Protein backbone atom coordinates (compact mmCIF):
# COMPACT_ATOMS: atom_id res chain seq x y z
CA UNK A 1 0.00 0.00 0.00
CA UNK A 2 1.39 3.36 -0.95
CA UNK A 3 1.16 6.57 1.02
CA UNK A 4 -1.44 7.93 -1.42
CA UNK A 5 -3.62 4.82 -0.90
CA UNK A 6 -3.36 5.19 2.86
CA UNK A 7 -4.35 8.84 2.67
CA UNK A 8 -7.34 8.25 0.38
CA UNK A 9 -8.57 5.22 2.30
CA UNK A 10 -8.30 6.82 5.73
CA UNK A 11 -8.99 10.42 4.74
CA UNK A 12 -11.87 11.01 7.20
CA UNK A 13 -9.84 9.57 10.08
CA UNK A 14 -6.76 11.61 9.15
CA UNK A 15 -8.85 14.78 8.86
CA UNK A 16 -10.43 14.19 12.26
CA UNK A 17 -6.94 13.71 13.68
CA UNK A 18 -5.71 16.91 12.04
CA UNK A 19 -8.77 18.75 13.38
CA UNK A 20 -8.10 17.41 16.90
CA UNK A 21 -4.46 18.55 16.68
CA UNK A 22 -5.55 22.03 15.58
CA UNK A 23 -8.25 22.17 18.26
CA UNK A 24 -6.17 21.11 21.27
CA UNK A 25 -3.14 23.14 20.21
CA UNK A 26 -5.21 26.29 19.64
CA UNK A 27 -6.92 26.05 23.02
CA UNK A 28 -3.61 25.26 24.74
CA UNK A 29 -1.97 28.22 22.97
CA UNK A 30 -4.73 30.61 24.06
CA UNK A 31 -4.39 29.34 27.64
CA UNK A 32 -0.59 29.60 27.51
CA UNK A 33 -0.67 33.14 26.08
CA UNK A 34 -3.09 34.35 28.75
CA UNK A 35 -1.30 32.65 31.60
CA UNK A 36 2.08 33.76 30.25
CA UNK A 37 0.97 37.38 30.15
CA UNK A 38 -0.37 37.13 33.72
CA UNK A 39 2.92 35.59 34.85
CA UNK A 40 4.90 38.37 33.23
CA UNK A 41 2.71 41.09 34.74
CA UNK A 42 3.14 39.45 38.16
CA UNK A 43 6.87 39.38 37.50
CA UNK A 44 6.74 43.17 37.37
CA UNK A 45 5.19 43.23 40.85
CA UNK A 46 6.84 45.24 43.60
CA UNK A 47 6.43 42.32 46.01
CA UNK A 48 9.61 40.22 46.03
CA UNK A 49 7.89 36.92 47.03
CA UNK A 50 5.53 37.21 44.03
CA UNK A 51 8.42 37.78 41.65
CA UNK A 52 10.31 34.92 43.26
CA UNK A 53 7.34 32.57 42.79
CA UNK A 54 6.99 33.51 39.13
CA UNK A 55 10.73 32.91 38.51
CA UNK A 56 10.54 29.52 40.23
CA UNK A 57 7.51 28.48 38.19
CA UNK A 58 9.19 29.48 34.94
CA UNK A 59 12.47 27.75 35.80
CA UNK A 60 10.73 24.52 36.89
CA UNK A 61 8.68 24.33 33.70
CA UNK A 62 11.63 25.16 31.47
CA UNK A 63 13.78 22.50 33.11
CA UNK A 64 11.23 19.68 32.92
CA UNK A 65 10.20 17.60 29.90
CA UNK A 66 6.60 18.38 28.87
CA UNK A 67 5.85 14.64 28.92
CA UNK A 68 6.35 14.60 32.70
CA UNK A 69 3.93 17.51 33.14
CA UNK A 70 1.35 15.55 31.10
CA UNK A 71 1.95 12.35 33.11
CA UNK A 72 1.62 14.19 36.43
CA UNK A 73 -1.73 15.66 35.39
CA UNK A 74 -3.13 12.53 33.76
CA UNK A 75 -1.77 9.74 35.97
CA UNK A 76 -1.02 11.78 39.09
CA UNK A 77 -4.32 13.71 39.16
CA UNK A 78 -6.49 10.77 40.33
CA UNK A 79 -4.27 10.17 43.39
CA UNK A 80 -5.26 13.60 44.73
CA UNK A 81 -8.88 13.12 43.66
CA UNK A 82 -8.54 15.09 40.44
CA UNK A 83 -9.77 12.93 37.57
CA UNK A 84 -9.19 14.61 34.22
CA UNK A 85 -10.12 13.29 30.81
CA UNK A 86 -7.25 13.01 28.32
CA UNK A 87 -8.28 16.03 26.22
CA UNK A 88 -8.61 18.59 29.06
CA UNK A 89 -5.52 17.13 30.76
CA UNK A 90 -3.58 17.55 27.50
CA UNK A 91 -4.78 21.11 26.90
CA UNK A 92 -4.05 22.06 30.50
CA UNK A 93 -0.61 20.40 30.45
CA UNK A 94 0.47 21.99 27.17
CA UNK A 95 -0.99 25.32 28.32
CA UNK A 96 0.72 25.59 31.69
CA UNK A 97 3.98 24.37 30.13
CA UNK A 98 3.88 26.80 27.22
CA UNK A 99 2.94 29.66 29.59
CA UNK A 100 6.45 29.62 31.08
CA UNK A 101 7.97 30.06 27.60
CA UNK A 102 5.51 32.79 26.61
CA UNK A 103 6.23 34.60 29.90
CA UNK A 104 9.92 34.68 28.98
CA UNK A 105 9.08 36.02 25.52
CA UNK A 106 6.85 38.75 27.00
CA UNK A 107 9.61 39.64 29.47
CA UNK A 108 12.12 40.16 26.67
CA UNK A 109 9.51 42.22 24.79
CA UNK A 110 8.70 44.51 27.72
CA UNK A 111 12.39 45.02 28.45
CA UNK A 112 13.01 46.35 25.00
CA UNK A 113 10.55 49.23 25.38
CA UNK A 114 12.45 52.43 26.21
CA UNK A 115 11.98 53.56 29.84
CA UNK A 116 11.55 57.13 28.67
CA UNK A 117 8.24 56.27 26.99
CA UNK A 118 6.81 54.85 30.21
CA UNK A 119 8.06 57.88 32.16
CA UNK A 120 6.50 60.17 29.59
CA UNK A 121 3.23 58.28 29.95
CA UNK A 122 3.39 58.67 33.72
CA UNK A 123 4.09 62.39 33.38
CA UNK A 124 1.03 62.75 31.17
CA UNK A 125 -1.01 61.23 33.97
CA UNK A 126 -1.87 57.96 32.21
CA UNK A 127 -2.96 55.21 34.57
CA UNK A 128 -0.77 52.11 34.97
CA UNK A 129 -3.36 50.03 33.12
CA UNK A 130 -3.40 52.33 30.12
CA UNK A 131 0.40 52.44 30.06
CA UNK A 132 0.40 48.63 29.83
CA UNK A 133 -2.49 48.45 27.35
CA UNK A 134 -1.76 51.44 25.12
CA UNK A 135 2.03 51.81 25.23
CA UNK A 136 3.69 48.58 26.27
CA UNK A 137 1.60 45.80 24.70
CA UNK A 138 1.15 47.26 21.17
CA UNK A 139 4.89 47.87 20.75
CA UNK A 140 5.90 44.65 22.46
CA UNK A 141 3.64 42.60 20.19
CA UNK A 142 5.43 43.88 17.12
CA UNK A 143 8.84 43.00 18.54
CA UNK A 144 7.99 39.53 19.75
CA UNK A 145 6.12 38.19 16.70
CA UNK A 146 9.03 35.96 15.53
CA UNK A 147 9.58 34.46 19.00
CA UNK A 148 5.82 34.13 19.54
CA UNK A 149 5.33 32.13 16.36
CA UNK A 150 8.41 30.03 17.11
CA UNK A 151 6.74 29.03 20.37
CA UNK A 152 3.38 28.37 18.71
CA UNK A 153 5.19 26.00 16.31
CA UNK A 154 6.68 24.29 19.38
CA UNK A 155 3.19 23.86 20.82
CA UNK A 156 2.04 22.12 17.62
CA UNK A 157 4.99 19.76 17.75
CA UNK A 158 4.51 19.07 21.47
CA UNK A 159 0.83 18.30 20.88
CA UNK A 160 1.96 15.01 19.27
CA UNK A 161 2.82 13.85 22.79
CA UNK A 162 -0.86 13.92 23.72
CA UNK A 163 -1.17 10.66 21.77
CA UNK A 164 0.74 9.02 24.64
CA UNK A 165 -2.05 10.00 27.06
CA UNK A 166 -4.57 8.61 24.50
CA UNK A 167 -5.87 11.83 22.90
CA UNK A 168 -7.01 10.94 19.35
CA UNK A 169 -4.97 13.55 17.53
CA UNK A 170 -2.85 13.03 14.41
CA UNK A 171 -0.11 10.83 15.86
CA UNK A 172 -2.66 8.65 17.64
CA UNK A 173 -4.62 8.30 14.39
CA UNK A 174 -1.43 7.08 12.67
CA UNK A 175 -0.96 4.41 15.34
CA UNK A 176 -4.61 3.44 14.95
CA UNK A 177 -4.20 2.99 11.18
CA UNK A 178 -1.02 0.97 11.77
CA UNK A 179 -3.02 -1.35 14.01
CA UNK A 180 -5.85 -1.72 11.50
CA UNK A 181 -3.74 -2.35 8.41
CA UNK A 182 -0.56 -4.29 7.81
CA UNK A 183 1.34 -1.19 6.74
CA UNK A 184 3.60 0.44 9.30
CA UNK A 185 5.44 3.16 7.45
CA UNK A 186 2.77 4.73 5.22
CA UNK A 187 0.50 6.08 7.99
CA UNK A 188 3.46 7.70 9.74
CA UNK A 189 4.67 9.25 6.50
CA UNK A 190 1.15 10.55 5.84
CA UNK A 191 0.82 12.25 9.25
CA UNK A 192 4.37 13.59 9.03
CA UNK A 193 3.41 15.35 5.81
CA UNK A 194 0.24 16.76 7.43
CA UNK A 195 2.24 18.08 10.40
CA UNK A 196 4.79 19.59 8.05
CA UNK A 197 2.06 21.41 6.12
CA UNK A 198 0.36 22.72 9.29
CA UNK A 199 3.63 23.90 10.82
CA UNK A 200 4.91 25.50 7.60
CA UNK A 201 1.57 27.35 7.37
CA UNK A 202 1.86 28.62 10.95
CA UNK A 203 5.46 29.72 10.35
CA UNK A 204 4.46 31.51 7.11
CA UNK A 205 1.67 33.28 9.03
CA UNK A 206 4.29 34.53 11.47
CA UNK A 207 6.50 35.83 8.66
CA UNK A 208 3.52 37.57 7.06
CA UNK A 209 2.52 39.32 10.31
CA UNK A 210 6.14 40.24 10.97
CA UNK A 211 6.39 42.01 7.60
CA UNK A 212 2.94 43.53 7.98
CA UNK A 213 3.59 45.03 11.41
CA UNK A 214 7.04 46.31 10.59
CA UNK A 215 5.32 49.02 8.48
CA UNK A 216 3.93 50.67 11.59
CA UNK A 217 7.32 50.90 13.26
Amino acid at each position, binding site marked *: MTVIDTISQFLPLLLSGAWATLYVTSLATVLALGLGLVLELLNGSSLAPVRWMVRTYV*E*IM*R*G*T*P*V*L*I*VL*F*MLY*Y*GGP*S*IGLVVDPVPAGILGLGIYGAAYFAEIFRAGFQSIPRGQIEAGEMLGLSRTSIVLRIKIPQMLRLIIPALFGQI*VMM*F*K*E*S*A*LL*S*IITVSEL*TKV*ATQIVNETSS*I*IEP*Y*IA*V*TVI*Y*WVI*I*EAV*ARCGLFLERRFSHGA
Partner: protein
Amino acid sequence: MEFLHIAWAYKEMLLVGAATTAVISGASILLGMPLGLAFAFGLVSHNRPIRLFCAVYRSFWRGTPLLVQILLVFYLLPSIGLDLSPVTAAVLALILNTSAFQAEIFRGGLSAVPKGQVEAAQMLGIAPITIRRRIVIPQLLRLVTPAITNEFISILKNSSIISVISVTELLRTGQQIVSATYRPLEVYGLIAIIYIVMNLVIAQLGRRAEARLARGARA
Protein backbone atom coordinates in the same frame (compact mmCIF):
# COMPACT_ATOMS: atom_id res chain seq x y z
CA MET B 1 8.28 11.77 53.14
CA GLU B 2 7.07 9.10 50.73
CA PHE B 3 9.10 11.05 48.23
CA LEU B 4 12.50 10.49 49.87
CA HIS B 5 11.56 6.96 50.68
CA ILE B 6 10.98 6.18 46.99
CA ALA B 7 14.16 7.99 45.98
CA TRP B 8 16.18 5.92 48.44
CA ALA B 9 14.50 2.61 47.62
CA TYR B 10 15.09 2.99 43.89
CA LYS B 11 18.34 4.94 43.95
CA GLU B 12 20.26 2.53 41.71
CA MET B 13 17.54 2.38 39.05
CA LEU B 14 17.24 6.17 39.10
CA LEU B 15 20.99 6.63 38.75
CA VAL B 16 21.16 4.23 35.80
CA GLY B 17 18.17 5.99 34.18
CA ALA B 18 19.71 9.43 34.67
CA ALA B 19 23.06 8.22 33.33
CA THR B 20 21.36 6.71 30.26
CA THR B 21 19.55 9.99 29.59
CA ALA B 22 22.80 11.94 30.02
CA VAL B 23 24.83 9.64 27.74
CA ILE B 24 22.16 9.47 25.01
CA SER B 25 21.61 13.21 24.88
CA GLY B 26 25.34 14.01 25.17
CA ALA B 27 26.15 11.60 22.35
CA SER B 28 23.36 13.03 20.19
CA ILE B 29 24.57 16.59 20.67
CA LEU B 30 28.21 15.71 19.94
CA LEU B 31 27.50 13.50 16.93
CA GLY B 32 24.96 15.99 15.60
CA MET B 33 27.50 18.81 15.73
CA PRO B 34 29.68 17.96 12.67
CA LEU B 35 26.51 17.20 10.72
CA GLY B 36 24.96 20.51 11.80
CA LEU B 37 28.13 22.34 10.82
CA ALA B 38 28.13 20.69 7.39
CA PHE B 39 24.48 21.66 6.84
CA ALA B 40 25.22 25.24 7.96
CA PHE B 41 27.92 25.54 5.29
CA GLY B 42 25.47 23.93 2.86
CA LEU B 43 22.85 26.55 3.69
CA VAL B 44 25.20 29.38 2.70
CA SER B 45 26.71 27.49 -0.24
CA HIS B 46 26.86 29.10 -3.71
CA ASN B 47 25.59 25.85 -5.19
CA ARG B 48 21.81 26.11 -5.57
CA PRO B 49 20.88 22.39 -5.38
CA ILE B 50 23.01 21.95 -2.23
CA ARG B 51 21.40 25.02 -0.67
CA LEU B 52 17.93 23.77 -1.52
CA PHE B 53 18.62 20.27 -0.18
CA CYS B 54 19.92 21.66 3.12
CA ALA B 55 16.95 24.01 3.43
CA VAL B 56 14.45 21.16 2.92
CA TYR B 57 16.34 18.98 5.40
CA ARG B 58 16.26 21.76 8.00
CA SER B 59 12.59 22.50 7.37
CA PHE B 60 11.62 18.83 7.74
CA TRP B 61 13.47 18.06 10.99
CA ARG B 62 12.47 21.38 12.54
CA GLY B 63 8.91 21.29 11.24
CA THR B 64 7.66 17.89 12.40
CA PRO B 65 7.17 16.52 15.93
CA LEU B 66 10.12 14.61 17.41
CA LEU B 67 7.80 11.79 18.48
CA VAL B 68 6.79 11.19 14.86
CA GLN B 69 10.43 11.40 13.73
CA ILE B 70 11.43 8.79 16.30
CA LEU B 71 8.61 6.46 15.20
CA LEU B 72 9.55 6.98 11.54
CA VAL B 73 13.22 6.14 12.11
CA PHE B 74 12.32 3.21 14.34
CA TYR B 75 9.90 1.62 11.84
CA LEU B 76 11.33 2.86 8.55
CA LEU B 77 14.85 1.48 8.87
CA PRO B 78 13.88 -2.19 9.46
CA SER B 79 11.63 -2.00 6.38
CA ILE B 80 14.66 -1.13 4.24
CA GLY B 81 16.60 -3.99 5.80
CA LEU B 82 18.45 -2.14 8.57
CA ASP B 83 17.64 -3.80 11.86
CA LEU B 84 18.38 -1.38 14.66
CA SER B 85 17.98 -1.74 18.39
CA PRO B 86 15.62 0.82 20.00
CA VAL B 87 18.60 2.66 21.54
CA THR B 88 20.37 3.00 18.19
CA ALA B 89 17.19 4.15 16.46
CA ALA B 90 16.56 6.66 19.25
CA VAL B 91 20.07 8.11 19.10
CA LEU B 92 19.90 8.25 15.30
CA ALA B 93 16.58 10.16 15.38
CA LEU B 94 17.94 12.58 18.01
CA ILE B 95 21.13 13.16 15.96
CA LEU B 96 19.17 13.90 12.78
CA ASN B 97 16.83 16.19 14.71
CA THR B 98 19.51 18.16 16.57
CA SER B 99 21.67 18.50 13.44
CA ALA B 100 18.89 20.56 11.82
CA PHE B 101 18.58 22.82 14.87
CA GLN B 102 22.36 23.11 15.17
CA ALA B 103 22.60 23.91 11.44
CA GLU B 104 20.34 26.92 12.04
CA ILE B 105 22.42 27.98 15.06
CA PHE B 106 25.70 27.68 13.13
CA ARG B 107 24.23 29.51 10.14
CA GLY B 108 23.35 32.41 12.43
CA GLY B 109 26.89 32.32 13.81
CA LEU B 110 28.43 32.26 10.33
CA SER B 111 26.81 35.56 9.44
CA ALA B 112 28.37 37.09 12.56
CA VAL B 113 31.95 36.22 11.56
CA PRO B 114 33.28 39.39 9.87
CA LYS B 115 33.44 38.98 6.08
CA GLY B 116 36.63 41.06 5.92
CA GLN B 117 38.56 38.36 7.74
CA VAL B 118 37.63 35.74 5.17
CA GLU B 119 38.44 38.13 2.33
CA ALA B 120 41.81 39.00 3.91
CA ALA B 121 42.62 35.30 4.22
CA GLN B 122 41.65 34.74 0.58
CA MET B 123 43.93 37.60 -0.46
CA LEU B 124 46.77 35.97 1.46
CA GLY B 125 46.21 32.86 -0.63
CA ILE B 126 45.06 30.63 2.24
CA ALA B 127 43.18 27.57 1.00
CA PRO B 128 39.36 27.68 1.49
CA ILE B 129 39.42 24.58 3.71
CA THR B 130 42.10 26.15 5.92
CA ILE B 131 40.11 29.40 6.14
CA ARG B 132 37.18 27.45 7.49
CA ARG B 133 39.19 25.29 9.83
CA ARG B 134 41.52 27.94 11.28
CA ILE B 135 39.57 31.20 10.99
CA VAL B 136 35.83 30.69 10.69
CA ILE B 137 35.08 27.62 12.83
CA PRO B 138 37.06 28.65 15.97
CA GLN B 139 35.21 31.99 16.10
CA LEU B 140 31.92 30.33 15.24
CA LEU B 141 32.19 27.94 18.21
CA ARG B 142 32.70 30.90 20.52
CA LEU B 143 29.68 32.76 19.13
CA VAL B 144 27.28 29.80 19.32
CA THR B 145 28.14 28.46 22.79
CA PRO B 146 25.02 29.93 24.50
CA ALA B 147 22.71 28.67 21.75
CA ILE B 148 24.31 25.20 21.75
CA THR B 149 23.87 25.06 25.54
CA ASN B 150 20.15 25.74 25.07
CA GLU B 151 19.97 23.07 22.38
CA PHE B 152 21.63 20.60 24.76
CA ILE B 153 18.99 21.38 27.40
CA SER B 154 16.18 20.93 24.92
CA ILE B 155 17.61 17.59 23.66
CA LEU B 156 17.99 16.38 27.26
CA LYS B 157 14.31 17.16 27.89
CA ASN B 158 13.17 15.79 24.53
CA SER B 159 15.14 12.57 25.01
CA SER B 160 12.32 11.62 27.41
CA ILE B 161 10.24 10.91 24.28
CA ILE B 162 12.38 7.89 23.36
CA SER B 163 10.71 6.10 26.28
CA VAL B 164 7.88 5.33 23.81
CA ILE B 165 10.12 2.95 21.85
CA SER B 166 11.00 1.28 25.17
CA VAL B 167 14.44 2.74 25.77
CA THR B 168 14.91 2.61 29.54
CA GLU B 169 16.04 6.15 30.13
CA LEU B 170 15.04 8.36 33.05
CA LEU B 171 11.34 8.79 32.27
CA ARG B 172 10.81 5.11 31.51
CA THR B 173 12.58 4.26 34.75
CA GLY B 174 9.99 6.51 36.40
CA GLN B 175 7.15 4.65 34.70
CA GLN B 176 8.56 1.34 35.95
CA ILE B 177 8.77 2.69 39.49
CA VAL B 178 5.19 4.01 39.21
CA SER B 179 3.91 0.58 38.22
CA ALA B 180 5.63 -0.89 41.27
CA THR B 181 4.62 1.77 43.81
CA TYR B 182 1.37 3.29 42.43
CA ARG B 183 2.67 6.72 43.42
CA PRO B 184 2.61 8.70 40.14
CA LEU B 185 2.76 12.21 41.64
CA GLU B 186 5.71 11.52 43.92
CA VAL B 187 7.66 9.52 41.33
CA TYR B 188 7.15 11.91 38.40
CA GLY B 189 7.89 14.84 40.73
CA LEU B 190 11.14 13.13 41.65
CA ILE B 191 11.99 12.48 37.99
CA ALA B 192 11.22 16.12 37.18
CA ILE B 193 13.64 17.26 39.89
CA ILE B 194 16.38 15.02 38.45
CA TYR B 195 15.83 16.56 34.99
CA ILE B 196 15.91 20.08 36.45
CA VAL B 197 19.16 19.38 38.29
CA MET B 198 20.75 17.93 35.14
CA ASN B 199 19.68 20.99 33.18
CA LEU B 200 21.10 23.34 35.81
CA VAL B 201 24.42 21.50 35.53
CA ILE B 202 24.40 21.87 31.73
CA ALA B 203 23.56 25.58 32.02
CA GLN B 204 26.46 26.01 34.45
CA LEU B 205 28.88 24.13 32.19
CA GLY B 206 27.71 26.28 29.28
CA ARG B 207 28.47 29.47 31.21
CA ARG B 208 31.95 28.13 32.08
CA ALA B 209 32.66 27.21 28.46
CA GLU B 210 31.51 30.66 27.39
CA ALA B 211 33.80 32.37 29.92
CA ARG B 212 36.76 30.20 28.84
CA LEU B 213 36.23 30.84 25.16
CA ALA B 214 35.81 34.58 25.81
CA ARG B 215 39.31 34.61 27.37
CA GLY B 216 40.66 33.29 24.09
CA ALA B 217 38.96 36.13 22.23
CA ARG B 218 40.82 38.83 24.12
CA ALA B 219 44.24 37.22 23.81
